[in-house]
């Protein structure tokens, strides 16, 4: 596959992630709000409430949407660097706020909007740094040495 094709494939999956993750959260919120507030945390009411939640079509639609997000996440991680994928997911937090505002009609104060923006920026920065800072494990070191030996033999 050419690098251009790989780029298109990666970007398409990132778009899928940024859309389906937040959409799943929004649907989950919609489904649960329709049930009304959980009446209590006692074991006498909790299982019943959760069963009712799983009887809701919206909740299952949410779970499907979150599954699409999760599968795309796993797929894209199988070829792209974590440090490239993770910052892209920071957009999801802004997306949730936008969808909450426009789709669910939630009221969001200016302070909260600024908070969401700062969170996006923070998550983006967290992902900008190397995903791995610890030393290699013994088996990985062995494998790296073996590869280095083979390379020097070929050379």
């Amino acid at each position, binding site marked *: 596959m050419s690098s251009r094709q790989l780029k298109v494939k990666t970007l398409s999956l990132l778009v899928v992630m940024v859309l389906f993750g937040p959409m799943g959260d929004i649907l989950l919120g919609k489904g*649960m709000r329709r049930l009304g507030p959980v009446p209590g945390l006692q074991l006498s009411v909790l299982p019943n409430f959760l069963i009712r939640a799983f009887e809701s079509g919206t909740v299952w639609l949410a779970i499907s949407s979150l599954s699409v997000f999760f599968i795309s996440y796993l797929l894209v991680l199988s070829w792209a660097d974590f440090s490239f994928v993770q910052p892209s997911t920071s957009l999801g937090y802004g997306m*949730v706020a936008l969808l*909450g505002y426009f789709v669910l009609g939630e009221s969001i104060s200016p302070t909260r909007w600024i908070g969401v923006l700062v*969170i996006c*920026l*923070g998550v983006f920065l967290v992902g900008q740094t190397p995903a791995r800072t610890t030393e290699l494990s013994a088996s990985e070191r062995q494998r790296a040495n073996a590869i280095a030996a083979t390379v020097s033999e070929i050379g």
Partner: protein
Amino acid sequence: MTPFVPFFFLVIVGAGTIGEISVSRAMKEIGEVHDFSPRNLISVFLRALRVPWMWLGVGLMACGFFALLLLLSFENVSFVVPVTAVSYAVGALGGKFLLGEKISRVRWLGVGLVCIGVTLVCIG
């Protein structure tokens, strides 16, 4: 239910994060998957079921998900989801103090911003 909001966040972030660490530990025990044929994936799945860490991880992640469901039954999505970003701070602190990872200055800056953002969302 409002007094329980911090408790729900504790379960979502705490159980969710520890659950993910347990699952990743279980997957490390199984080893890297090279063969993606359906037959091999089924065998990987069956092996995963025999690792206790997997059961612990999946159980904890389920608890986190249930807590998210319950919290969303009375709180706005645009409040709940951004606040769960606090898991990045928990992850960095856990990585540093439990796993001995070195956290770069840029990552600390990111974690700091996430914390400020979460505070703004909470007071907003």
